[in-house]
């Protein structure tokens, strides 16, 4: 990343930078990570130029280091996200996200006749296909695919 581009969103001292978010997935990522619920200092930028994605978004969270199971949730909406772990203004670690084997909560079952859409129940899916994304509902046994994906 060039110096000039970095200036578009201000730097953080300690925390996590979530980079390479497709611009249209920014709010899904905010939602999934519950960033609207936390009190940390958050800056984000969107519609930044990106060679790979056209328009990308970036989120910087001061003082927050995510657990694996938290960040892997992002992969459902933005599989190519990169995480930079920042300590004392330096990138100390770079990480990719991975689609998990199971998805609990987060995603709504696509089937309107599923019990989870009719009573207050935490959803639970097994990931059947990681490339095209197919989530098999533990309850109704129907698949929800990427196009049908809706967050809780």
């Amino acid at each position, binding site marked *: 990343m060039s110096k000039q581009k970095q200036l578009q969103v201000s730097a953080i001292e300690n925390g996590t930078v979530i980079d390479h978010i497709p611009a249209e997935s920014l709010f899904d990522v905010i939602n999934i990570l519950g960033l609207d619920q936390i009190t940390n200092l958050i800056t984000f930028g969107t519609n930044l130029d990106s060679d790979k994605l056209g328009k990308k978004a970036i989120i910087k969270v001061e003082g927050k280091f995510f657990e694996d199971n938290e960040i892997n949730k992002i992969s459902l909406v933005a599989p190519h996200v990169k995480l930079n772990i920042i300590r004392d203004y330096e990138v100390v670690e770079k990480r990719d996200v991975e689609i998990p084997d199971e998805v609990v909560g987060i995603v709504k079952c696509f089937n309107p*006749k599923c*019990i989870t859409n009719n009573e207050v129940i935490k959803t639970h899916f097994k990931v059947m296909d990681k490339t095209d994304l197919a989530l098999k509902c533990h309850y*109704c046994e129907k698949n929800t695919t990427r196009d049908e994906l809706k967050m809780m």
Partner: protein
Amino acid sequence: MKNKSLVSISDYTRDEILRILELAAFYEANPKQPELREKVIASLFFEPSTRTRLSFETAINRLGARVIGFTDSSSSSTTKGETLKDTIKMVSNYADLIVMRHPLEGSARYASEQSRVPIINAGDGANQHPTQTLLDLYSIQKTQGTLENLTVFMVGDLKYGRTVHSLLMALSHFNPVFYFVAPKELEMPCEYKAFLRERGIEFYEQKEMNNLEQADILYMTRVQKERFSDPMEYERVKNAYVLRNAMLDKTKENLKVLHPLPRVNEIHTDVDSSEKAYYFQQAENGVYTRMAIISAIMGLK
């Protein structure tokens, strides 16, 4: 199997399926077995299904247990807005086993997680109806002497028909050959065909009722008008999936015609008198199969 819920046919292994069929044969030979005299079994029908309910309640009575419950949700507390969770929590304090039918898919799995006692799924929407599958298997084994290496034709609505999907999964343990006979709009979904390919199970798809001379089992299902997006298409295909007695002429001696019932017109009444018609006995087998399932879960045998 003891104390384990039966929600989906895939909850049972090949050996467990065979064990149920063995028990079903025992109960058919010895139908009066009041072994559950001290027990209370709840029969919760959140939507009416007289056929399935009577079959279960007959099985429960033959085993000597008492039945509590309701026959449709208008007579239950669910009309007062009680959640499924609360109903199940309450009933599982009273009963030793719960048989339930519910219009929502996944309801039985959820109930099994909330209940202190085992659940038998008697149908959850379009999802699963495992006791139907087990009685189909029992009928097949009884008439063919085996479940192995059979050629099974499935005819009609293969897209939405949950009975054919569950039967397909269960038979996949026994090296079958399948012929799928359905109109384009109702053909077998890709996920099931992918499942068969993965397991190296042979199958053929055809739009017409031919090659019947290959069949050991002819499993007929209803083709319902409301499944078609184009009513003209229904009119065009509806007669193509009606079985008539003359069509059985060149078929194998051992062929049996099965149907989950109730039928509409997909099996002409002229088939009823054929030796090969088995759908009425199939329904009767349901009582023995359900006795076997209840007995296995209650740990009787």
